[in-house]
């Protein structure tokens, strides 16, 4: 469980996050939705400690996380997996080495065990025979999937995904969504996913938080979202004609 208590963040005097409070439950998929530039990525980076918050507190399962220094955050590090919006694979390493990297850092596994784990993770993201390729030889969607494999390799307790299925074809996108849902429930992970994808919202969202200009504008469940009368949220979700038709059914 991750708790945000009145989180605020400004860059150069521009308020990006304004007083956001919420709770993300364990074993659930927590979706953060919002338009481009609404502050989703910044909020995620605050949560994992890449960006320090200006005000407010962050709690991981009852332990405070905000305000700690690098050393004090060490124990949390092995528990956190993150999929960056751009993948952030290490260019100088092969796919296999990328996924093995956190295992080298955190575990005392033998090489064989590590290779098994790498192949297991690659399998779960539907990739085969890419072990020896370098990131530059992969397509955008493949990079995303390798990034997911790397994030889940060390069995994290907290999984952060910044738009894991943007740039993927609809079928792979569903595969990834289901994968995230599966591992979240199987390993009781606290999962937070930033997304634009309405399909994901309807398919896998347990809890949904809508960010609008850096503020928590709405939060609730999938059922709630279909019946909401929040104007901005409705405009955001039912932006397309197709979606509007779905709502009217």
């Amino acid at each position: 469980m991750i708790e945000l208590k009145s989180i605020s963040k400004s860059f150069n005097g521009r308020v990006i996050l304004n007083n956001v409070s919420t709770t993300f439950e364990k074993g659930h998929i927590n979706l953060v939705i919002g338009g481009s530039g609404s502050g989703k990525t910044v909020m995620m980076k605050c949560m994992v400690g890449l960006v320090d918050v200006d005000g407010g507190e962050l709690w991981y399962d009852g332990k405070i996380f905000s305000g700690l220094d690098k050393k004090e955050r060490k124990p949390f590090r092995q528990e956190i997996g993150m999929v960056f919006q751009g993948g952030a694979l290490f260019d100088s390493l092969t796919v296999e080495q990328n996924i093995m990297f956190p295992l080298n850092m955190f575990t005392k596994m033998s090489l064989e065990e590590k290779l098994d784990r790498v192949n297991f993770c690659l399998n779960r993201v539907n990739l085969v025979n890419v072990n020896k390729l370098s990131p530059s030889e992969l397509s955008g969607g493949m990079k995303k999937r390798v990034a997911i494999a790397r994030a889940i390799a060390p069995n994290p307790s907290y999984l952060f995904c910044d738009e894991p299925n943007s740039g993927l074809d609809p079928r792979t996108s569903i595969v990834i969504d289901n994968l995230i849902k599966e591992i979240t429930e199987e390993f009781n992970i606290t999962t937070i996913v930033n997304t634009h994808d309405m399909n994901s919202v309807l398919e896998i969202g347990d809890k949904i938080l809508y960010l609008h200009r850096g503020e928590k504008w709405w939060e609730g469940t999938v059922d709630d979202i279909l019946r909401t009368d929040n104007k901005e949220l409705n405009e955001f979700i039912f932006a397309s004609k197709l979606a509007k038709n779905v709502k009217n059914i």
Partner: protein
Amino acid sequence: MNWLFHLGRYWIFIKEMMTKPEKFSIYWRQLVRELDNFGYGSLGIVALTSVFMGAVITIQTVYNLVNPLVPLSAVGIVARDSIILEFSPTMMSLVLAGKIGSSIASEIGTMRVTEQIDALEIMGINASAYLVLPKVVAAILIFPFVVSISMFLGVFGGWFAGTMAGVISSAEFIRGIQDSFVPFNITFAMIKTLTFAYIITTVSAYHGYHTEGGALEVGQSSTNAVVYSSILILVFDYILTQLILT
């Protein structure tokens, strides 16, 4: 006050870098890679510039030596001392600042803008230590060898050009380079070399590490890395010469 900001941020960067590695095996692999990269990778350009530099110094010294009372072997002495004291350590460092400095800054800068550094931090890895420390150590280990090779090839270039052009005989040149040799000059050259190795790697890494933006900014960081390391090399060349040789 801009330079004060950079100075402060540079010190913080260095302090973060100088921490105990999380896992030695991983650093070791990086170190070996950089040793190969800096050493073997720069031999070609160092050899080429050193030979030509020695040749030019020798021919110019002969040209400037108009006093018939000074024996021609003095050319050997002058060429040797200027190569050892100044040209090999300083000029090679400037050449390497261009080659190695820009590649360090663009490598680390690219990692910064593509969030690879964030990915390292997420995994609890001290990115500045992991990325930079092996480079600094590699440069400090390998630069003395590179500069020694440059000294040797510089003197060789001088001998070759001098005798080829017929301005000095082989025997006179060789007598010159053996005459009144001061071993401390080598020590001094190595002190300079180590300082420059440290400057090139840390300053370039600093510029790469603090890149913000995209590909365009990576290019700017890379340029800044070369410009600032070169300026600092010249400044410290002066400071060290003043401190140690006077």
